[in-house]
């Protein structure tokens, strides 16, 4: 990848909180215009990595280069390029929605003549035009998250960082937030930190799996899925008369079979390709009770990577 195409370059970052090492020599590149998902278990270092990128925290060692600027040398320039939506939508309760957006627009240095049109455009985007004069403390969690999205976009940033944007939201609100992200995809460089694998699978161009402060794997969702399980998982539920040892031996003869597991009368067979499915099924003969093929999910990738 050409270095000009890299928007965020995380270089050997280390960060500890007391005795706890949150990030351990973390390296990661985020390309210009891509939507990168960061997934990982609790305490993997996702939020720390994001806070370091946003110059909220300072690393113990290493550097992050954002659009050519180092977090050590030019944090203010970096901050002005990033729209950050933290995990919890904590906002100034006494502010009215429009005032809140005005306040942040002024802090981001948005030109005065552009502030009002931008506020109206964003309120429209998040469907809150009619709530602009209401105070934040009257909003539900979903509305707070929507106004937080608008706040993060107020200065039309090149980079948007979402930390668990749909956490704790009802399915409809979560879908609307995902919809905002989808609308921004391709236009901005987006980092999406999430616990929801389907969300990452659905939205992200690439996904980085973080565990214990290190990147365990990074790639497109399809690449990651194929890497752990192959292309497809064949599950065959059998009756109790089956000689499982003999069947297993026969199955392993097929060239496409990667791994085989047997539990509770069900065979789970990982296949590299689908060409031999019919022949494998034939091995079971009349002992088949049910048969199913299943694509591996990002969830499988996640569990495989962090175990």
């Amino acid at each position, binding site marked *: 990848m050409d270095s000009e195409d890299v928007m965020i370059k995380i270089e050997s970052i280390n960060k500890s909180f007391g005795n706890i090492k949150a990030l351990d020599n973390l390296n990661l590149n985020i390309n210009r215009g891509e939507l990168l998902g960061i997934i990982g278990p609790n305490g993997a270092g996702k939020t720390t990595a994001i806070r370091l990128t946003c110059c909220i925290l300072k690393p113990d060692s290493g550097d992050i280069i954002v659009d050519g600027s180092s977090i050590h040398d030019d944090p203010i320039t970096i901050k002005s390029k*990033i729209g950050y939506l933290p995990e919890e939508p904590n906002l*100034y309760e006494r502010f009215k929605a429009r005032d809140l957006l005005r306040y942040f627009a002024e802090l981001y240095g948005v030109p005065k003549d552009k502030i009002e049109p931008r506020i109206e455009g964003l309120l429209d985007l998040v469907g809150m035009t009619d709530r602009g004069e209401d105070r934040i403390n009257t909003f539900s969690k979903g509305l707070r998250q929507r106004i937080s999205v608008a706040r993060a976009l107020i200065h039309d940033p090149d980079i948007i960082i979402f930390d668990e944007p749909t956490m704790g939201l009802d399915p409809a609100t979560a879908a609307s937030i995902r919809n905002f992200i989808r609308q921004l995809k391709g236009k901005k460089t987006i980092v999406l930190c999430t616990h929801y694998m389907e969300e990452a699978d659905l939205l992200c161009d690439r996904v980085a799996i973080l565990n214990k402060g290190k990147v365990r794997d990074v790639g497109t969702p399809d690449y990651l899925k194929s890497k752990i399980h192959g292309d497809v998982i064949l599950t065959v539920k059998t009756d109790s008369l089956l000689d499982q040892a003999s069947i297993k031996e026969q199955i392993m003869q097929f060239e496409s079979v990667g791994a085989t597991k047997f539990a509770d009368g069900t065979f789970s067979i990982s296949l590299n390709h689908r060409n031999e499915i019919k022949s494998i099924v034939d091995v079971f003969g009349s002992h088949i009770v049910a048969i199913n093929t299943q694509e591996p999910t990002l969830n499988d990738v996640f569990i495989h990577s962090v175990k």
Partner: protein
Amino acid sequence: MKFTTITKWELKNTLKSRKFMMIFVLQLSVLLLMIIVFNSFVTNIESDKGIAITPSLNGFATMDVQDQSGLISKYVNPEIISVNNVTTYNTSILRTENGLTTGFLYVQGNADTQIKTGETVNMLVYVDAADPKMSVVTNEANNTAKTIAQSYSSSLTTSANTQNLTANFTQETTGESLPLQIIKKVMLVILLFLPLLLFGNIIIDSIVGEKERKTGEILVAMPISHSQIIIGKSLAVALTISLQVLIWLGVLLIFGFSILNPLAVFVFIFLTSIPIIGITAVVAAYSKNYKEAGIGLSLAYLVIVGFLIIPVLVYISRKSFIANISPMTIVMRLFSGQFIAIPDYLLCLGFILIVSLVSYWFAIKMFARDDITFGPRPGILRILFELLTLKFFRK
């Protein structure tokens, strides 16, 4: 200059806040109450009667006195016993028996003439033994007799001494007495400085509130430095305080307080607010929550108040140069119309400058530290250790 944006919005929110308006009005009411108390106190202390520190016994006991010369009744202490001059012996005896008076003092003949001719004066005290106040009357009658005896013997000694050249001594004073100065000047200067200590909660709310509400994270993510955040917030509080001080100055002037150089007084009080807000910002930057900040602030303000007031008292009693280190001393001298030499000003301004620089540097440094803002927060002893080993300066 993005700190002005923070100042503007902080000020706007403070002035729009109902809580703030309530505090503001409450403080003004307290000030008015203090002015009333202060005024009546000073009026009393300046009156001829003065203020009795001990409770008055006036009217506690009454005594009928039959004294032809009027000498005895003149020496009876009116604070203790009300004297009722009578001429009829039997009536007073009856009055005592009926409880209409506590006792009756009878002086035979003309006491004044008797004393001058060296005769013994016979006095009779008649009391009702059942009356618990009888001892007051007997004691007072006894004391009066002793006092008269002492003053006459002293008079005889003086007249017998031919070399006695005792001058006719009169006393004249200039200025106010020390207690009156302390009450009038110190109380007024305290009233003027009071707003500085009443608005600590605003800066606490402004900085600790960001931590408690967890809004600090988005604020720190803004393209604005930590120093601009602290300065922006502090300036908003300083402006709020200056508004309050202006109103207080106006109220005090309206109520007839003599404040010379009001503009210079205002400027000095405003300047004093800067280091006080700085120290408050240090407490706020370190505190995790309002409770901690409240405790820290109480301790810090105790030291600040002591530092402000003690030099004022020192200055009143000794006119010491070093006492000018406290801005309260300068303000007191300013509103009293005293001449203040340049070194006195420089001492005070220099101290304000140093404390301001150190406190804001500390507050900004603490606010910018990850461990203090996001945890795990180091203890105070650890920070002191870091300061001693100069590690704090490198972080």
